[in-house]
C-alpha cells in the first residue's frame, strides 16, 4: 500500500525530552505527541487505548537509566513495555509496535526523527491488524497439550 502512513503515538518525559524548546513549537513537528511528567505514569490502559483509537505503534521516550526524577519511573515504564510486548506477542501481534528509548534530548530535536524512524519500521509491518489470529497447526497443538 503506497498511501499507507502508519500512525505513531509518542509519549515522552518532560524531564528528559524537549524541555529547553517551547512545547508548542515542538508539537508542530510531531503528530500525536503526548509530553508528560515521568514515563512511569503511562499505564497499559493508555497504550491499549491508543491502539484502540487507531495507532499502529507506540513510542515511549523516558529518561536515561538512573536519572529518573522520581527514582525509578523509567524502569517501571520499561518493565511495563516489556510485559505489554509479551502480551501482544502471545496474541499474535507484532511486539515491534511498542518501543521504549531511555535517553535524553533537552532540545527535543531528535523526537521527530525517532518518530519517523519508527514510522518507517511500522510501514514494513503494515497496519495493526483488526484482531489477533494465528492459525493453529495440528502438530503444534498436540505438542502444546502434552501429547506426542
Amino acid at each position, binding site marked *: 500500500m503506497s498511501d499507507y502512513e502508519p500512525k505513531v503515538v509518542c509519549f515522552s518525559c518532560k524531564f528528559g525530552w524537549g524541555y529547553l524548546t517551547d512545547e508548542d513549537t515542538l508539537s508542530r513537528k510531531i503528530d500525536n505527541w503526548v509530553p508528560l511528567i515521568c514515563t512511569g505514569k503511562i*499505564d*497499559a*490502559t493508555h*497504550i*491499549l*487505548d491508543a*491502539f*484502540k*483509537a*487507531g495507532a499502529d505503534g507506540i513510542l515511549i521516550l523516558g529518561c536515561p*537509566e538512573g536519572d529518573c526524577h522520581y527514582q525509578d519511573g523509567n*524502569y*517501571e515504564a*520499561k*518493565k*511495563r513495555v*516489556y*510485559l*505489554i*510486548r*509479551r*502480551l501482544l506477542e*502471545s*496474541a*499474535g*501481534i507484532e511486539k515491534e509496535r511498542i518501543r521504549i528509548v531511555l535517553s535524553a534530548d533537552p532540545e527535543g530535536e531528535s523526537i521527530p526523527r525517532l518518530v519517523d524512524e519508527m514510522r518507517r519500521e511500522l510501514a514494513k509491518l503494515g*497496519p*495493526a*491488524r*483488526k*484482531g*489477533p*489470529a*494465528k*492459525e*493453529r497447526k*495440528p502438530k503444534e*497443538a*498436540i505438542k502444546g497439550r502434552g501429547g506426542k
Partner: protein
Amino acid sequence: MAKPKIAICWLGSCGGCDEAVVDINEVLLRVADAVDIVLWPVAMDFKYDDVRRMKNGEILLSVVNGNVRNSEQEEIAKLLREKSQLILGFGACACLGGTPGLANLSTKENIFNWVYRDAPTVVNPNGNYPRVASRVNGKELTLPEFYDRVHALNDIIDVDYYLPGCPPPPYLVMYAASAVLENKLPPKGSTLAPNRALCDSCKRNKSKPERISTKEIRRIHEVEADPDTCFLAQGIICLGPATRDGCGEACMNINIPCRGCFGPVEGVEDAGAKFIPALASILDAESDEDITRIVNQFVDPVGYLYRFSLPASMFQKKGER
C-alpha cells in the same frame, strides 16, 4: 395480584450458571413461590413461542447467562430484551465474554478447519462443514449462523445489571433476587457485587511483605504454594489486585490464585491492562536481560490476563475503527 414473571436463559454457556441458580438450594423454592418462572430451558419445559406470545415488558426480569456467538443466541437475547423490563447479565460469559471468548484469538475459518478437519480425532473424508442451510430429500434444513467472534451480552442488547463470576456465588444470586423482588435495585448499569478489589478481602493480604518483589514468575503447578502467603509474594501470578471482589475466594481457599472471573473493579474497562503495571512493579529487575528473562517466564499472557474477559477487553477492540 399476579406474580412477577421471571425468565432464566442460557446462550453460549456451559450450564454452570444455571447450576449456580440451583445452588441457592431451598431458597429457590421460596423464590419459585414468589415468582412465576416463564422460561428456563435447562430445567423446565417452556417453548420460545410461549415467550414470543407475551406482551412487551411482560417479564419482570430475565436472567441471561452465556455469551453470543451465533444467530440463535442473538435472536433469543433480543427476544428476551423485548419482553423483559430488566435484563441481568449473569456470569462471566454474559458480562465479559467468558472463557469461550478466548476463541476470539482465532478466526472462524481456523476454528472450523480445526474442529471439522485438522483435529487428530476428526474423521471427515467428505469434508462436511456445517452450513446455515442445506437441502436434504427436497427439504431445507437450517442451522444457526456461527458468527466471526464471541460477543459479551451488552454487545448485542442493552443490559440493566451485571452479576459476574464463573459461576456467580449463591449469596450474590440471593442478593440479586431479593433486590429485584423488593425493588431495592442500585442505578441501572450497576454490577451487583462489591466495588473493591479481591485483595481487599483476601485473608492472605496481611501476610504480604511491605514491598512485594520477585525475581521469578512461577506457575501454580510448578511450585508448592504456601496456603497462607500472598501468591504474588511467592512469585505466582494472581489477578486479585485487578479483579472485583465478591467471589467468596473460592479459588484462594483451595490454594489457587485468582484468575479474574469477576472482571474489572468499578470504573475500570480492562482488568488485564490494569494488572500489567501491578505486575511490572513487583518484578525485581533492571537490566534488559533480567527483565526479558522474567517476562518470558509469563506463559500465555493473553490467555492468563483475559481468561474470562477477552471479548469485553480494550485489547480485543484494538483496531476496531
